[in-house]
């Protein structure tokens, strides 16, 4: 669809190879001391504030932020941009929850552990289905974003870019688990922050607010309207989608378990504050497209296309680095967290309760490889746009907000109410997705789910004992006890 790329394919290929080599090396370096399952899955539960804030922010700056935020600005205008930045609310609200999670479950491994212990088997299986479906949707969107980005900037075929980004993230996640993921995330967060600030300043200098406004008013007036109906409907939908993503996903729970005692609250709060302006800057880039006369063949390409056309080869390289860092930081986190969820909640809890640490570690590696392969296959089909794919999963994740939050704070919320809220919330959200539009799916799912949780808690209150959440994790193998000690010592050096 794009026949006039800005970056020379050879230059793009060199960039791609260099970045790939860098991330694989950094992943190996940070993860080289991960000897035990706890080191591999939760970075030794000893992550400090700087790395904690960096990994939370970088993981949340993803294809959603760098490519879907511009897309939504081009689709929904000003509210699209502002609505997207409300995604930071999810991180900020999760800050107190992270502290609560760490207090209630000092030995917890996954978000699935919480749902199983809090609500029992039925709700746990419903939750796992939702969580794994969402994780796959997010993984596919990230792989697609990699392919689209490289194609938009260099004309290199979609499937090559998609294959490269999936391969390197699978490789370095395999090498070092969550420890490698957090180390690379920290560096990627720094690149993203600097890159987005530079890009925003360059766009304002080159185009100017007045030009952007004048062309939009002439050609796309509804984008400037604060009364655009779909955008008004989208505003809280996106907020609740983000809240649902963070509240339920093991990506965030694994960080809550991995952060040192007392770090979670500050890390998530700071990450939310740092993250909020990024979609505004990224979205503004998209609004400059009409003023610059740039053709946008598909809306999820708009960010890279504008930056590259406006700023030439330098801009294209900058966007390339920023978006690639954003994609990699989320893809690796998701691979690690989803593999943890599958290994802990499906493999160990359903199939091999007595599995040794070494077996779990091997299973974890196998799951990461399988997830990579499955994601590649679905990305290769290239079925839809990024925003549509992401917001399809919104119907599911928003239905988990109230079962999770009420489950953490209210003794009286009962298991059947939680399961029914997730099932009926998802169904209602999906119906809204198809009958009205992607911009209301999460909102409807969250509203229906909340209503069911409130009603069932009021009508059939339970009395939950919080100490039931304090379950021991996998028993350490004597064969790996020695490296575990060594690993923890070096963990403190690296992550303090």
């Amino acid at each position, binding site marked *: *669809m*794009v*026949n*006039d790329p800005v970056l020379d394919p050879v230059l793009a290929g060199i960039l791609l190879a260099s970045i790939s080599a860098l991330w694989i090396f950094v992943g190996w370096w940070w993860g080289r001391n991960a000897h035990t399952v706890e080191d591999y899955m939760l970075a030794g539960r000893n992550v400090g504030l700087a790395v904690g804030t960096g990994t939370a922010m970088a993981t949340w700056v993803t294809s959603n932020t760098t490519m879907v935020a511009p897309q939504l600005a*081009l*689709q*929904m*205008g000003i509210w699209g941009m502002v609505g997207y930045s409300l995604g930071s*609310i999810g991180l900020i*609200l999760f800050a*107190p*929850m992270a*502290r*609560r999670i760490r207090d209630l479950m000092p030995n917890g491994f996954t978000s699935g552990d919480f749902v199983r212990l809090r609500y029992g088997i039925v709700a746990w299986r419903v939750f796992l289905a939702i969580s794994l479906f969402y994780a796959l949707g997010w993984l596919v969107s990230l792989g697609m974003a990699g392919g689209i980005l490289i194609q938009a900037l260099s004309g290199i075929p979609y499937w090559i870019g998609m294959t490269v980004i999936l391969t390197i993230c699978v490789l370095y996640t395999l090498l070092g688990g969550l420890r490698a993921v957090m180390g690379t995330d920290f560096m990627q967060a720094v690149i993203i922050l600097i890159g987005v600030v530079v890009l925003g300043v360059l766009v304002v200098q080159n185009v100017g607010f007045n030009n952007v406004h004048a062309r*939009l008013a002439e*050609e*796309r*007036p*509804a*984008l*400037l309207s604060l*009364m*655009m*109906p*779909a*955008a*008004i*409907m989208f*505003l*809280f*939908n996106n*907020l*609740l989608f983000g*809240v649902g993503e963070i509240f339920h996903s093991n990506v965030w729970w694994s960080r809550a378990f991995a952060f040192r005692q007392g770090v979670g609250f500050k890390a998530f709060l700071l990450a939310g504050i740092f993250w909020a302006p990024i979609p505004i800057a990224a979205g503004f880039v998209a609004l400059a497209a009409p003023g610059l006369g740039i*053709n*946008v*063949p*598909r*809306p999820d390409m*708009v960010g890279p296309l504008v930056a590259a056309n406006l700023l030439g080869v330098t801009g294209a390289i900058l966007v390339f680095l920023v978006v690639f860092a954003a994609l990699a930081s989320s893809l690796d986190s998701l691979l690690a967290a989803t593999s943890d969820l599958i290994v802990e909640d499906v493999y160990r809890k359903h199939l091999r309760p007595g599995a040794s640490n070494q077996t779990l570690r091997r299973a974890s590696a196998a799951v990461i490889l399988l997830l990579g392969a499955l994601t590649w296959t679905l990305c290769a089909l290239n079925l839809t746009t990024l925003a549509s794919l992401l917001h399809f999963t919104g119907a599911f994740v928003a239905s988990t*907000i*109230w079962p999770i*939050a*009420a489950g*953490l*704070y*209210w003794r009286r919320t009962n298991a059947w109410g939680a399961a029914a809220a997730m099932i009926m919330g998802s169904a209602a959200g999906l119906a809204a997705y198809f009958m*009205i*539009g992607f*911009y*209301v799916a999460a*909102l409807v799912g*969250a*509203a229906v789910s*909340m209503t069911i949780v409130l009603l069932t808690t009021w009508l059939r209150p339970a009395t939950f004992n919080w100490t039931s959440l304090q379950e021991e994790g996998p028993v350490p193998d004597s064969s790996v006890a020695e490296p575990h000690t060594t690993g923890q010592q070096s963990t403190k050096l690296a992550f303090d």
Partner: protein
Amino acid sequence: MIRFAGTVWPYLHTATGIWLLLTSLTVAVRPSTAQDVLTAPPVLNGGIETQRATAGFYTLSWNHPASDLGLRYEVQEAARAGFVSPRTIYSGSDLATFVSGKRDGTLYYRARARPAVSDPRYRWSPWSTVLAVTTAHHSRARAFAFLAVGAFVFLATVALIVVGNRANSETG
């Protein structure tokens, strides 16, 4: 798609022959079928959302049977089906464009193609069949109803967390 004009093999054994061969290659290596093929117009498509765009955005895409020849396209937009004062919204070799920010109403689109090489012998193809796209935004009442529901769910969630944390910190 590429054909050589005339028979060149008898001249190959002489210098003149080689010169003639090169000349004939230069002159004759051309998309001679392009003009024939471009008697057909491109096909202009809208996505499923163009049947009734409720959010003011949609994607237009186009193609031509001879697109392998390297074609250039022009896409026009007009407020009336007769294209009295059309506006060119795209000119180039891409195969799609994303339209957004439209107010309620119907807009009409058409596309045409020509070989990308600048050669006066190549003219534009005829215009495609006109595609009509109607934008009909959701009603304000519906939009604000969703806004109110979203705000209520959000505030209730914040209250749950804030009150829950306060209660837990008080009870230790």
